[in-house]
């Protein structure tokens, strides 16, 4: 039972980290701080514009796979893998 609880709180910590990054790249870089970031450039892209139309999406993909990998490790650690 304690095992299940610490499994869950480690999971919550991971989710929190991922959602923080999720929020920062989209709502942060893509919307709230877009003007400040637009001062910088990435090739022909203004940086804020790039995050809004490209970068946030790439980050989302990375986040899901990273979380999946971390959770697989966590499942092993607590021996709760499914079949």
């Amino acid at each position: 039972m304690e095992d299940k609880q610490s499994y869950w709180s480690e999971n919550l910590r991971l989710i929190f980290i991922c959602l923080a990054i999720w929020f920062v790249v989209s709502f942060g870089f893509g919307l709230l701080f877009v003007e400040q970031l637009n001062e910088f450039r990435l090739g022909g892209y203004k940086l804020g514009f790039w995050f809004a139309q490209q970068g946030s999406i790439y980050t989302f993909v990375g986040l899901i796979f990273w979380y999946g990998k971390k959770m697989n490790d966590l499942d092993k650690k607590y021996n709760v893998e499914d079949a």
Partner: protein
Amino acid sequence: MDELKLYTWIAVGGTFALYFFIAWWARAGSTSEFYAAGGGITPLQNGMAIGADWMSAASFISMAGLIAFLGYGGSVFLMGWTGGYVLLALCLAPYMRKHGKFTVPEFIGDRYYSKTARIVAVVCLIIASLTYIIGQMKGVGVAFSMFLEVEYDMGLYIGMAVVFVYATLGGMKGITYTQIAQYCVLITAYTIPAVFISLQLTGNPIPQLGLGSTLADGSGVYLLDKLDQVVAELGFKEYTTSTLGDVEMFAYTLSLMIGTAGLPHVIMRFFTVPSVKAARQSAGYALVFIALLYTVAPAVGAMARLNLMNTIEPAAGQNLEYAERPQWFKDWERTGLLAFEDKNGDGKIKYTADKATNEMVKVDRDIMVLANPAIANLPNWVIALVAAGGLAAALSTAAGLLLAISSAISHDLMKGVLVPDMDEKTELRASRIVMTISVCVAGYLGLNPPGFAAGTVALAFGLAASSIFPALMMGIFSKKMSSKAAISGMCSGIGVTMLYVFQHKGIMFIPGTSFLGGMEPNWFFGISPNAFGSVGAFVNFAVAFIVLRATGPAPSHIQNLVTNFRTPHGEVAGAHSH
């Protein structure tokens, strides 16, 4: 018959024949196969199927056009329609898969130990999915009428017949394998023209890089800078900075994200994989396949806009003679989606932001993707491919939605509430009959779209965001959340959202530029009805927690149920074995 039409018939006919073949090959023999493809779909296959399920006529046809005219403001669709997958993968899919049932209302009914909760979820699901499906049926009709010059009605009947065959025959199993084929068709059809156009304009074949490159005309100017300059000269807002307003963009993006995570036809797909691990993985694959289109779309939008501007005004002040307009211009004029009015009588086309002197009196944003290959002078087979791709996008989403609706009715309403002792064979037959009826209803609504549907697919997201998403989140992350609290939350969330939408009916459903229109005095913090789902979701959460405070927590066996589905191993709750 000209060459283009011949190619189009070959492309459309060939892909349809393929879908029929797959439907026959993968027909369903049990309810488990019908609702969840027997739980035997691999994460990669499931990811591809989710991609096709997810990317509708709106993604394929409308989105790049919206971006072309909204510029930076169009980012809400890009971030909103992809960011939801992070929520799905982290917060919903693994736990719902572990619980191991067929449908979203079934999960809600179990978690909230209440038939009422299940029925409320069914109603929310049907409202959101029907709103969505009308857009798909219209997309099918429009694609047929534009490319094959058959009547809109006839096109719709053909589309209905195709969906009917593979959805009723194959259920989730048939739909899954068909959707995999449809994904391949639609992504090819979307990227090939984009690659050609990117090459033409920038010399870089990868559209995502082309958009950030310099133009190939030797000027050394970046494409986006050029576009900013061209549109600004004509009085439009600068492309890379034109915004919809801070609050609106925030609310709209959030609404689309949580709506994505709350749409039942997508969540349902996670019941088809064999394990919790596979559920997490398939969300990742799904987003890879979706991102392939979503990162190309901004390039398509920007390049189409630049090409359109350059065609009309090749160099500053040298406007195109109307008499010398290209063939695609004439073709789209015939459909009424493009219109010219020679206001100053000089025979030349003038396109500016100033309404009084602008002579391009109508440029429908939906034509940007469809007209793109022709504007860029691409060969006819590419144009034919785009037609097949648009149809694949619309049909695959329509099928997924139909399955969500029919399983909600046959599995949740009939088997779950009205006739619980129905045997499997009867249920399978019932679900096929319900599917048939759903196809007919969807077709009818496509033929006679009700006023409220004329606007938008985005509305469906607001409805899902304000009703289903919060109920699922609270069910997983709050053990104490009770049935009374969740039901009050769902009803008030979707209620508030629908009220807000109906209040704006007159404003929202004027087609065209109402996105940027100056209706703000009536809007809640300047938030448009399309973006209101996030506010509805907030109301849902707030009401649920207040009611929870007042009425007490869920019983302990339910709290144990939650503990159980939070870990991947161990028994699943129900009879649905994999």
